[in-house]
């Protein structure tokens, strides 16, 4: 049995999860803002991005983004506009969307918005008292919201760990695992393919690869985290 302090042992992973979900939710929740671009162009972002060695998709995604940032100067208004258009065209409209960001557009047979998946996702959010800001007007199962949910629960898990509330911790981790398996992992692979096929620029394909890779990896992470006998190591 591992005799390490569970807090010290798992805190790095829990913090890493918060970090990655934070980056991912910002990527997909809204159009690329200057602030978002500041994050990814910050010195150290690329170099320190986690799990590039452990996951090929993350590795490739980071390479896409590295190449993108070398070729495109995001301080140039025109280059920024091009990236902005990539997001608008793929994820906002007004034309048909090549890569819509809603779960029900993939998992529902009819590929519509506001479907059974939307309700199920809403139920998951409500357990933790979350709802979309424009409830009933925006669909709950937008990728950005689902990632925000994972981010919020990741923060909560760290809080529980720090409070040594292991029952709470385990429940949150379990819920994250269920959400990941029941939702994100079911549709993000197809979404990733669509982004790869339809993007003009390499940034979103890069982020999509990181997303796809990280979700797979996070399932393993959750399994590891759930495998620990927190109470046991304390005693």
């Amino acid at each position: 049995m591992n005799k390490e302090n569970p807090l010290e042992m798992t805190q790095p992973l829990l913090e890493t999860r918060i970090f990655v979900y934070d980056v991912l939710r910002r990527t997909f929740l809204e159009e690329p803002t200057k602030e978002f671009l500041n994050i990814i162009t910050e010195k150290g972002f690329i170099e320190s991005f986690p799990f590039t060695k452990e996951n090929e998709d993350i590795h490739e995604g980071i390479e896409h983004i590295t190449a993108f940032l070398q070729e495109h100067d995001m301080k140039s208004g025109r280059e920024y506009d091009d990236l902005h258009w990539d997001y608008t065209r793929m994820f906002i409209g007004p034309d048909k969307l090549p890569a819509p960001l809603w779960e029900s557009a993939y998992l529902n047979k009819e590929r519509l918005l506001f479907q059974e998946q939307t309700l199920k996702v809403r139920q998951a959010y409500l357990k933790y008292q979350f709802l979309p800001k424009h409830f009933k007007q925006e669909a709950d199962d937008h990728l950005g919201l689902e990632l925000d949910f994972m981010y919020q629960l990741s923060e909560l898990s760290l809080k529980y760990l720090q409070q040594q509330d292991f029952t709470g911790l385990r429940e949150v981790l379990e819920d994250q695992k269920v959400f990941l398996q029941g939702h994100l992992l079911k549709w993000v692979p197809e979404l990733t393919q669509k982004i790869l096929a339809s993007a003009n620029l390499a940034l979103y394909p890069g982020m999509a690869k990181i997303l796809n890779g990280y979700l797979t990896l996070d399932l393993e992470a959750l399994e590891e985290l759930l495998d620990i006998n927190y109470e046991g190591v304390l005693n």
Partner: protein
Amino acid sequence: MANLIEKAKNYTMSRRSFLGLSAGAAAAITLPGCGLTKVDSTTAAANLANKEGEWIPAACWHNCGGRCLNKAYVVDGVVVRQKTDDTHPDSPDYPQQRGCHRGRSQRHDVFGADRIKYPMKRKNWAPGGGNKELRGKDEWVRISWDEAMDLVAGELKRIKEQYGNKSILGSSRLLNFYGGGLVRWGSSSSGAWGVVQECMTGFFSWKSNDRLDWRNAKLIVMWGSNPARSNLGNPTYNLMQAKKAGAKIIIVDPVVTPTVKTLADKHIPCRPGTDTALLLAMAYHMIENNLQDQDFLDRCTVGFDKDHLPEGADPKENFKDYVLGTYDGVPKTPEWASEICGTDPKLIRDFATEIATTKPMIFTSSFAPARTYRGQQFCQAFLTVGWMTGNVGKSGAGVWTMNYAANQSYGGTTLVKAGGTGLPPAKNPLFPDVTYGAYDGYRWANPKNPVANGMAYCETYDAILNGEYTGTNGRGKVPCDIRLIWLVRDGYGYNYLNQSSDINKGIKAFRKVDFVVTNDIVLSTISKYADIVLPATTEWEKDGTILQGNPEAIFITPKVVEPLYEAKTEEWMDRELAKRLGLNSDEIYPISGKQQFFNSLAGAQVIKEDGVNYETLVTITDKDIQEWGIKGKQQQGKIALNDLVKQGVYQVPRTPDDKLTVIQGADFVKDPKAHPLTTKSGKLEIHCQALSDKIAAYGLTTVPPIAKYEPPLDGYEATFKDWKSKEKGQYPFQLITIHYGRRSHSTFDNIPQLREAYPEDFVMNTRDGQALGLKNGETVLIESAYGKVIRPLTLSESMMPGVVTLGEGAWAEIEDTTDIDKAGATNTLCGARLSGQGEEPWNTTIVHVEKYTGEPLKPDDEWKQRIIF
């Protein structure tokens, strides 16, 4: 196991330093609040509760010609599924109003991933126009409602102040309060029928006997009508009841349509645009054999022969002498007609004998044969030949045209009707004949009104490009300088760039003006070429309305779900704009949408059992008024307000022995003097000077006062280089543009399951195709003098040789480099030609067909996203 717990530690130092770097900027990078928000535990618990869904009547509001009941099963704001009418058992007398595949796809329209969710601006547009050439291929930018409203109000104000209201093309409630705009007028759906009905019959033949009386007919002739495809809902079923009761059904059509296959005992083929020739030959045969009902003609009509002409008419200008060729030397024999219309002379004679000798007979036409160049001639000939049989004002008999949903098999009196909304009309000062509610001058019937600032549908693009249009009532060319195209209406699309003739010219015109603003549900063709597109609510997201059309039922459709994303109603947009334009929005909208819905319910009337008088339909209590939060007073009716809204439909039950049967014109036929029609002579006018004068007043084409055949522009004759030797010309095929199952006009063209079910194939006769070396399923290029489309080919013996067809309403996808429309919008092929009362002459269009040598088309349902760079 990867041991991520351990590996995460490797990233800790650098990640921490990264987070540390960003920490200072943390405030700046907080999310702007579009993520999840924390709600209190009570809200969460309330929403978590396992809620039962409920069935809510859901509007099916399109102008398909039908009206049916749609219901949505709504769980917590999510429409899980749809159903249709199950409010009472189905029977032929009292049929359920069941929806079609399109109505049942309504959910796909409302909740499609391609709904427009936010105000969008074309990137290279700026006040004044920016780069106008990029319309239709520019990038888009999401903008806020505030920015959108500022830009729209700014352009509207600038253009009004700089160029005047006459430089604005469009009509809406807001615009009408802001000085109005130019109006497009003309006739689309009903073709040339409107003015003909008004002048020749006083709208007498716009109405019909009710459907239960149709079962008394021995013969029903359906001219150019295909309800099994074009009028979904009950029409085919209702006609089937007449057939079961013993009526023989004859259908005249260039195509062996699904209706022919379902209902017809006999099919009479006739080339498009040549129906007049066929009808004249039938008249010839009847006159030759003295089969006409002379007594009826003498008593109830004017103009059949020289002895029964209206006062002041040229004695030579009578129908009988024209048919016999007394003065022009051309007897309109079946042989004469056959060369033109393609119908065998013997078939023409037999058909004429049959309609003249079978009584009672119903002689009914659709609008399609009148959607031709100078289509009045068909309407004149159809009514005249019908009247020659004397089948008017009797049970099981009648001569009429199918008037939308009403006569498409229901007919009779309107048995139940909605009340008014109470919203006062808003007149367009530049075109007072058109008030709010009609966004353009559809079937505008007042060409002698000098206050008519606007142009025929088919002249719109020339007016924009050349700066002048034809003024009605002899005003000659009127100069214009159109700067703004305004199409902000209540979420109904009105996609005229796609649905009016000559899309290529339309795009040129759109690329000339300063500003195009639309609101829309999805990016239809007209919005694709706009500068600002505003997200509109569908009927499911509004306060509610009553839908009418079927004379036996009304459909009550309350709000189903909240407006999606940032979609707004027209009222909301108008109020925002009014603020910026210095208008009083409460004057524009003195009552709310909910109050309007309530008023139309409170004012609803239903016929009494006597079949004459009406009574109040809805019972309203003080409690209802409080619950609804509107103004009103209590009243006693036949059904409680909330029960009606929950039920979604009120249909008057019918039985064969009820008192609701209508024999259209029985009084008139018995005693025409005592019951005159509203025509000039008080009779049915075979010779109608008023028609001739009125058509002349539009200033486009002329018609003689009696039915005569004149080869139409782009008709059968025009397919030949040399008529005598029958050498074919550059465009040897005649195209008809049918209503297509995938859509209601252009609505629903984006719905994947409908695209899969209806492939938008181009259909031609098998032998014609083989002669050109064409194979079933291959991609063909169809070209007219106005444009080019490519489509998959279907070869079928159901088509008359020389006739080809394509469904109207596909959303044009014109490639800029080749000018080829991949989607096959028929208006890419149909030219904008000026005719009669401004009817669009779609069914007189000629084309060339060849194998397409480029990359073959994929089936429409497999189309990838159009990539715009």
